[in-house]
C-alpha cells in the first residue's frame, strides 16, 4: 500500500511523539512509525522477577513545561508522584550530606563540615539559579537570544569553578553528579555551563528540581501517545523504515522494510543524526566533507542501569525517608577518574552511583512489603555490552560492593536484580551521538535540527542540548518545519 502524508515521524520516542503531536495539532496529516512494538523509547518499565518493575529511567528533570501544557498531558494521566527529590551524598567516612531546595536547611547541613560553605551556599544558589534562568533562552526557544555574558562559565571546568566556591568535597560531589547524565566530565571545558543547563531546567514547576512521575517516565510517554492519537496522528508500530526517499537533496517520503513506499514533504527523524545519515539516506548526501567529519566521534562513557528488588530498605535510605536521590562515590576526584577511565574504555575502579527508591513514592514498582532500588551507574565503558554473562554478574557485584562499603548488610536484602548494560540500552533504544559539552550547549537549535536535506528534520534526543527526557526538540523541530511552510 502506498500512501501520502504531510509529515512522517520516524521513531516513537518522547521527542518523536511530541513532534508528531504538534504537527497533527497544526492540521498536518501525520504518520508516526516505530520499529518496536512499544512506544516511548527508553521511557518504559521492565517487569522482572515476581512483581518488581524497573523504570529504565528513574527520574525526570528537564520535561518541557510547554509540551506538558500545550498537549494537556494531565488530561491523559500524567502527574508527578514525587516533585522535588533532594540529593544525598554518601561519600568517604562522613555523614551523608543532604542538598535540598531549602537553602537554610542545606546551609545548616553544611555547617557540620565547613562553616565557609555553610555561609556561602545561600548566595551561591541564588546567583547560580539566577544565571541559569537567564540562560534559558539559549536552550528553551529556537530564537536563542541571551543577554548575559557566560564566557567565564563556558571556559572553566566545573571542578575548577567549584574549587573556587567551596571547601566541602561532598558538596562539590553533589553538584558534579548533576552533570553526569549528559556524558560530560566535571574536568571538561563546558562542564560548568552544563551544570547551569541542569539548573535551568524545571520539573513540576520547580526550577532545578528532580521529579518522579507516577508510574515512572513510562507514564509520561503514555500520556504523549494519547495526546498524539487525540491530535490525529496515525501510529504504526512494529514497522521499520528501510530508507528515506530523496529526490536530489530533498526528502520525498520513506520506504518501509516491507517495501511499502509512503510519500511526504517532510520527515522528522528521532534517531541520531549520525545513525540517520549512515543508515537511512544515500551515502554522503549531506556532502562529502560533512560526511567525513561526522565519522569522527567524541569518546564518552556509557551508562548502565540496574534494578534490585529488596526485602527491606538499606539504612542510608532512612535519610530523607528514602525520598531522595542518593549519590555514592568516595570523593570528587574518584568521580573524575572514573569518567576518564570509562571514556577510554576502561572499567573504573570506583563507580559513581545514583540510587533512587521508586517504590517509596509509587507502590507499583515492588510487591507489598518490598522495595525497588534503582541504580544508575555513570562512567561505564560504552563498549560494555554484557554479551558475556560474566560481565553482568561482575557489574552487579561491583555495584553491590560499592553500596556494601557504606551499608554492609545490603547484600542480604537483595532478592532479585536486572541489568541493562550500555550495549543493551543502545541496542534497544538507539545509540546516542556525543559531542563535547561546550559545543553541544552552544550550538543553535537550527544547527541541531535542520539538515542539508530539504524537508528532513532531526527531532530526537541528540537534537537536545543535553541528554534528558524533554520533548523540547520534538516541539521545536515541529515549529521550525511548520514555519518553513513546505506543507
Amino acid at each position: 500500500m502506498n500512501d501520502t502524508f504531510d509529515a512522517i515521524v520516524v521513531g516513537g520516542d518522547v521527542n518523536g511523539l511530541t513532534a508528531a503531536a504538534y504537527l497533527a495539532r497544526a492540521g498536518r496529516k501525520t504518520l508516526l512509525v516505530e520499529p518496536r512494538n512499544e512506544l516511548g523509547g527508553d521511557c518504559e518499565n521492565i517487569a522482572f522477577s515476581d512483581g518488581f518493575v524497573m523504570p529504565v529511567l528513574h527520574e525526570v528533570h528537564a520535561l518541557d513545561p510547554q509540551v506538558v501544557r500545550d498537549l494537556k498531558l494531565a488530561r491523559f494521566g500524567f502527574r508527578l508522584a514525587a516533585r522535588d527529590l533532594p540529593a544525598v551524598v554518601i561519600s568517604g567516612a562522613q555523614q551523608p550530606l543532604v542538598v535540598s531546595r531549602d537553602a537554610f536547611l542545606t546551609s545548616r547541613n553544611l555547617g557540620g563540615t565547613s562553616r565557609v560553605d555553610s555561609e556561602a551556599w545561600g548566595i551561591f544558589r541564588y546567583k547560580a539559579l539566577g544565571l541559569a534562568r537567564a540562560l534559558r533562552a539559549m536552550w528553551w526557544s529556537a530564537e536563542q537570544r541571551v543577554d548575559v555574558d557566560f564566557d567565564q562559565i563556558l571556559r572553566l571546568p566545573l571542578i575548577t569553578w567549584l574549587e573556587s566556591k567551596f571547601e566541602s568535597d561532598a558538596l562539590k560531589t553533589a553538584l558534579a553528579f548533576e552533570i553526569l547524565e549528559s556524558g560530560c566530565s566535571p574536568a571538561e571545558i563546558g562542564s560548568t555551563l552544563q551544570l547551569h543547563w541542569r539548573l535551568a531546567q524545571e520539573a513540576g514547576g520547580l526550577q532545578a528540581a528532580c521529579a518522579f512521575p507516577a508510574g515512572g517516565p513510562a507514564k509520561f510517554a503514555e500520556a504523549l501517545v494519547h495526546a498524539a492519537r487525540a491530535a490525529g496522528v496515525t501510529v504504526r508500530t512494529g514497522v521499520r523504515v528501510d530508507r528515506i526517499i530523496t529526490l536530489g537533496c530533498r526528502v520525498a517520503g520513506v520506504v518501509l522494510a516491507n517495501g511499502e513506499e509512503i510519500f511526504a514533504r517532510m520527515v522528522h527523524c528521532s534517531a541520531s543524526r549520525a545513525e540517520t545519515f549512515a543508515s537511512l539516506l544515500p551515502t554522503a548526501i549531506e556532502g562529502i566533507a560533512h560526511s567525513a567529519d561526522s565519522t569522527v566521534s567524541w569518546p564518552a562513557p556509557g551508562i548502565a542501569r540496574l534494578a534490585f528488588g529488596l526485602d527491606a530498605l538499606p539504612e542510608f535510605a532512612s535519610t530523607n525517608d528514602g525520598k531522595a536521590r542518593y549519590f555514592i562515590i568516595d570523593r570528587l576526584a574518584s568521580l573524575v577518574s572514573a569518567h576518564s577511565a570509562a571514556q577510554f574504555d576502561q572499567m573504573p575502579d570506583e563507580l559513581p552511583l545514583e540510587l533512587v527508591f521508586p517504590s517509596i513514592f509509587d507502590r507499583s514498582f515492588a510487591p507489598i512489603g518490598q522495595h525497588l532500588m534503582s541504580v544508575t551507574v555513570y562512567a561505564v565503558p560504552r563498549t560494555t555490552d554484557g554479551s558475556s554473562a560474566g560481565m553482568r554478574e561482575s557489574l552487579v557485584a561491583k555495584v553491590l560492593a560499592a553500596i556494601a562499603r557504606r551499608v554492609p548488610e545490603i547484600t542480604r536484602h537483595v532478592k532479585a536484580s536486572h541489568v541493562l548494560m550500555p550495549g543493551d540500552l543502545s541496542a534497544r533504544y538507539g545509540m546516542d551521538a556525543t559531542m563535547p559539552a561546550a559545543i553541544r550547549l552552544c550550538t543553535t537549535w537550527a544547527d541541531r535540527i535542520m539538515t542539508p536535506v530539504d524537508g528532513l528534520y532531526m527531532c530526537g534526543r541528540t537534537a537536545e542540548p543535553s541528554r534528558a527526557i524533554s520533548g523540547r526538540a520534538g516541539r521545536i523541530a515541529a515549529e521550525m518545519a511548520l514555519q518553513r511552510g513546505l506543507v
Partner: protein
Amino acid sequence: MTPILASPFHARTASSNIQNAWTSRNGFTLATAYASASEEALAARTSVVIADISWRWRVMLQGPNVKVCLDRLLTRDVGPLEPGSSLKALWLSDGGGVRGAGAIARFGKESFLLVSAARDARWIEMTTALFGVRAHDITLEQGGISVVGPYAQHTLSAAGLDPEIEPLQFRKLFWRGLDVTLSRWGELGGYEIWCGAEDAIIVWDRIVTAGTPFNIQPAGLSALDVLDVEAGVARPLRDWMPANDGNASIPSPFTLKLERLIDDAKLDFNGRTGWISSRSIQRRTLIGLELESDIPAPHAPLFRDGQLVGHTMTSVYSPGLRRAIALALVDLDHSAVATKLTVSLPPSMEAPVPRDAAAWIGDLPFLNSPVPIA
C-alpha cells in the same frame, strides 16, 4: 611536501633539453622548452610534436560501489559509459566550488580511471572511503606521452598503432610486445599513449622514429600551455585555485565557464545545492584576451576606464596569432566580446619601465586545436 619526481621519459627529455630549462608540475621535473615554446607550439600546428604528460594525475577506482561513488562525486552520469569510453566532468566541494576537473574513463564494469591535471588525493580518498571503493594512484607506475599535430595519425600509423579512435575513446593494446593504452582524453586534439614506467624509453623512441619523416619534435610544458590558452582551456593550479575548503563555494563552475561539464538533470552530485545557490550571485566570468603586445601579462590587473574590472590568469605569446594572449576573469558587466580593456605589462630587460597595453576580449577558443590529418 611534494616529492621531486623524475618522469619515466626523463632520460630522453634530458638529452633533448639543450637549454637545460626545467620546471615542475605535480612534483615531476619537466622540460620547460627544448628549443623555444613558440616554435614547439607552432610545430604542433604544422607538423607533429611529442610531449611528456606523465605528470597528469591518474587514479584507478574499483569496487562494487564505484558507480554509486562516482554518482556522488562527479557532476555527470557515468552510467551510460561503455568500457573504452570516457567523459569530462567536474567534482565540487560541499559548497559548490570547483575542486577538480578531469576525464573519467570506464575500464570495466566496476573499474574507472580518473585523469586530471591536478592532484586532489585527499578528497578522492575521503570519498572512496565513504563508499568502500578502492582508490589506487597509478601516476608513478606509468608514463604518458601526448602526440599532437596534423601528422599525429601518420606518426602513429608509422609506429604500428591504429589511430582510428574517436575523441574521449581509449583502447588497451598489445603493441609490438608492449602493453599500452592509446587514448584521446586531452583537449588539444591529439593522442595519448600510456605505458608501464619501465617501457617508457622504448615507447618514446618508437614514436620519435616513426615521426621523424613528419618532422616530429619534442614539446615542453610551455608549448603545451600555449596550446591550452589558444584552445581556451584553463587548468587548476596553473590558472585558478581549486576550492580546497570542504565548504567553499568558489571558484564556481559558472565563473570558470565549466557549466557545460555539469549535467543539469543529475540531482545527486556533491555540491549541487551550493552550485545552484551561487549561480545567481556570481560576479565574474572567464574570458579570452588578445593583447596589443608581444609580451605576455600573466596575473596582471585589468582596467576599463580606470576602474579595476578583473585580472589575467595564464598569458602566453601565441605564434599562431602573433600576439600575446591571456585567459582572464573579469566582472560580468565588462565581459562582452570586443570590449577594450587595459592591462599592465610586466617590466622586462627590453622595457624596464612598467607600461600598459590595450587588450580586447575575444571569443574562446582563440584557435581550434590542431586536427590530425587522416
